[in-house]
């Protein structure tokens, strides 16, 4: 497994790299955003760890650039997080995960493992997809169509959609979502579902502001509402 670590602090790159290397990863290090992006295209890592504040090109931009071409899981690692908006901003840029410095090396390594696990194996319990004529989810091939268009979902978004779909008609609480989509290490990161639900809605809902599929249950969680397929011709 290849992990690319982009951080302008040499001491941090060094310790993170050593930790992951000892856990058996192939490590690539970059000291700024541009170098990181170049190395990404060169090495095709399985996971990217990105600092946010860096010279040349900041982590958010690197993240967006990577997202334009790949689904590679991205972990933001920043000292910057003060408010939820900062974290949400990171996740909105396409990151799968936002860790705040300082973090214990063991926890960091565990999160790297969890993120890789999450992005690699999406094995839905049900094999039945969903199709109502507008929204079409093909679980076998992991394809999602909205109307006639095939849309692109990141692994996390896809998993989120599947968990909601499996529990359709029932409210899934924030914590259930965190546990099932992200893993129980994430149980306290309750802004994750909110941000990802918002992104998912923009992709699958006819009108993201007035959702008809992914409904909010105020203060509790979210519920997927199935719609009757159009009459057969």
């Amino acid at each position, binding site marked *: 497994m290849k992990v690319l670590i982009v951080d302008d602090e040499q*001491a*941090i790159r060094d*310790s993170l790299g050593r930790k992951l290397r000892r856990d058996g990863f192939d490590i690539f290090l970059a000291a700024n955003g541009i170098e990181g992006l170049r190395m990404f295209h060169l090495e095709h890592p399985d996971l990217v760890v990105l600092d946010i*504040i860096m010279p040349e090109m900041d982590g958010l931009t690197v993240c967006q650039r990577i997202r334009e071409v790949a689904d590679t899981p991205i972990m933001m690692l920043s000292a910057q997080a003060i408010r*939820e908006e900062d974290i949400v901003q990171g996740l909105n840029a396409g990151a799968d995960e936002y860790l705040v410095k300082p973090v214990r090396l063991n926890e960091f390594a565990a999160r790297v493992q969890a993120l890789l696990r999450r992005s690699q194996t999406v094995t839905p319990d049900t094999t039945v997809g969903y199709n109502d004529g507008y929204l079409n989810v093909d679980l076998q091939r992991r394809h999602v169509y909205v109307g006639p268009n095939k849309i692109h979902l990141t692994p996390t978004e896809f998993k989120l959609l599947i968990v909601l779909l499996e529990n359709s008609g029932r409210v899934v609480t*924030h914590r259930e979502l965190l546990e099932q989509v992200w893993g129980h290490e994430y149980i306290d990161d309750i802004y994750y579902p909110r941000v990802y639900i918002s992104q998912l809605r923009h992709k699958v809902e006819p009108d993201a502001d007035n959702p008809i599929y992914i409904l909010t249950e105020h*203060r*509790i969680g979210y519920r997927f509402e199935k719609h009757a397929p159009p009459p057969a011709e």
Partner: protein
Amino acid sequence: MSALNIISLVVDSISLTLAVLMLLLVFWQDSHSLPNALYGLLTLAMIIWFGGALLERVAVYIEAPIGLIGSGIRLAELGLTSVCVLLYLFSVVLTGAYSRYFLRVAGVGAAAIIVYQLFISYVASNPIDSTTDVNAITYSYGLSWSLLFGLLAVATLFVAWQQRRKFHDSLLRVGVSGIAIGILIELISPQLSSRLISLDMCVASTLLISYAQVRAQIIQPLTGRASQLKGFRDVGLAITSRLQLDEVLKTIATQAADMLHADGAAIYLSHDSVLELAAVYNMPERFIGQRLALGEGLAGQVAVDRRVSQVEDYQRDWHGLPDMQYARQAFGSVVAVPLVFGNDVMGVLIVVENPSGKRFDRDDVRLLEMLGPQAAVAITNSRLFEKQQELDRLKNQMIRMTSHDLKNPLFAAMSHVELLQEEGKDILTPEMLADVDTTWTQLQRMNRIISGILDMERIQSGTPTYEEFAIEDMIGIAVAELRHQAAAHTILLETELPVNLPALFGDRHYLIQAVANLVENAIKYTPDHGTIRVSAEQIEDHVVLHIADNGVGIPPDAQARIFERFYRAHPHMEQVNGTGLGLSLVKAVTDAHGGRVWLDSQVGQGTTFHIALPLSGIKGV
């Protein structure tokens, strides 16, 4: 004497009595202003004219000696002369349509004419040509007098027409014109004059003027007070509800002009003994930023005098430096009020009418005088607010920098110590490993302090992340975190929770931390073998948590300060190590949830902290 004339005289005397009563009312309200003084003199002249007319007719009626009749006529002539002169002066002063030296020249002229009239009354022969018929005492004024009266009457009519916008009340204009026309009638026809037509008209017009004066100066201010107060309150609200300085200034200028129905307004702010034009309403924006030294211009003068000042006609009456480049051409009537807060003149507000506009009256000046302090407070507020915002911005920036600049090296150090712990455990001596552990503990402590500061910042400035959760869970997690620590001090840590507690809506993470901080605090200040009890209960629409210990207690003087950052109630207890942020975080979290935290404590007996949280969730959620 015909019945008609008798009726005329009776009606006129009643009218004049009424006019005098109204005059007294107006004088009671304001006897100092020039227009009112002239109005009083005019009424007096009218009474003299009427008195003369009355005397001559009564004298004829009772067949008194011809000298008495002549005296009546002289009196009437004196009255008429005074009425003509005073009417013209009154109309000019009322409309402010005079140039710089007019008042002095006109005053002298008027006095000369009246004295001359008195003089000739005394020396001249009996003016009566014929008294064959009591009902037709005809006499003429002579060409020169007629010409003078006519000129004055026509001039008055001209002023009344040309300056019609400047009459506060259209009735005043009608009254002034009425008297002037009456005078012309008097001159045109001795027959009409003998029938008292012109006198009737003039008396009626005087009554009209009196009524208009009472209406404008007494009735309208009284009836308008409610709406004026409401308007004033609205202005106050509009001014004080804004926080950005430029918005506040713009609002003050706009509202002041609106309130006075004026053409424009401007605000100068004082910086380092210079006035700078900071906001305008309905004036060229390009003047903004222009400066006046203190004492320069009307605004500069007002800033020095600290008193409201009114200039009736800027072009005519203001002799100092102009307030703005175009002021001499563009300003008519101007009121300037200092904006004083405490001992400082914050600035000057000027309200301006264009040269052909109305003149400001006493009420306008008073209103503006009342507005001044409010405006000064609003300006001070917004200045403080902007300063505070700037400080907040700096603070946030510093916290961000701290977070980044300290956390990166801290993280680097911590991760390397972790690597050393792992990789060195088989190589290092026990002493070295102990050193590494100490380094780790101290780095962690540093991290706690930085995180504490950042947490405080996040709670105070950010939006908490709300979710619904069980109170039992919150307390359970907080207590579980510290059970080990309590056990180490052989402190009994127990919870007492009723079964049917409702769910709470709030930031679970920080609420757990708040409870944990209180429990940790209790552990620190409770001697070994002590007891700490955490309980909760629902009281109406709040849930109240109690964290009680039987520790050292908090002295009363320290209780008030206990929630301040870095405050320590027991600085001498060296062995207690903490960040000094724990309780301030409790307070910040509670505040952010719309709740309340307080304590009961007895030195030597123990302390109980209480946290009340609203169950309905938080305001606005």
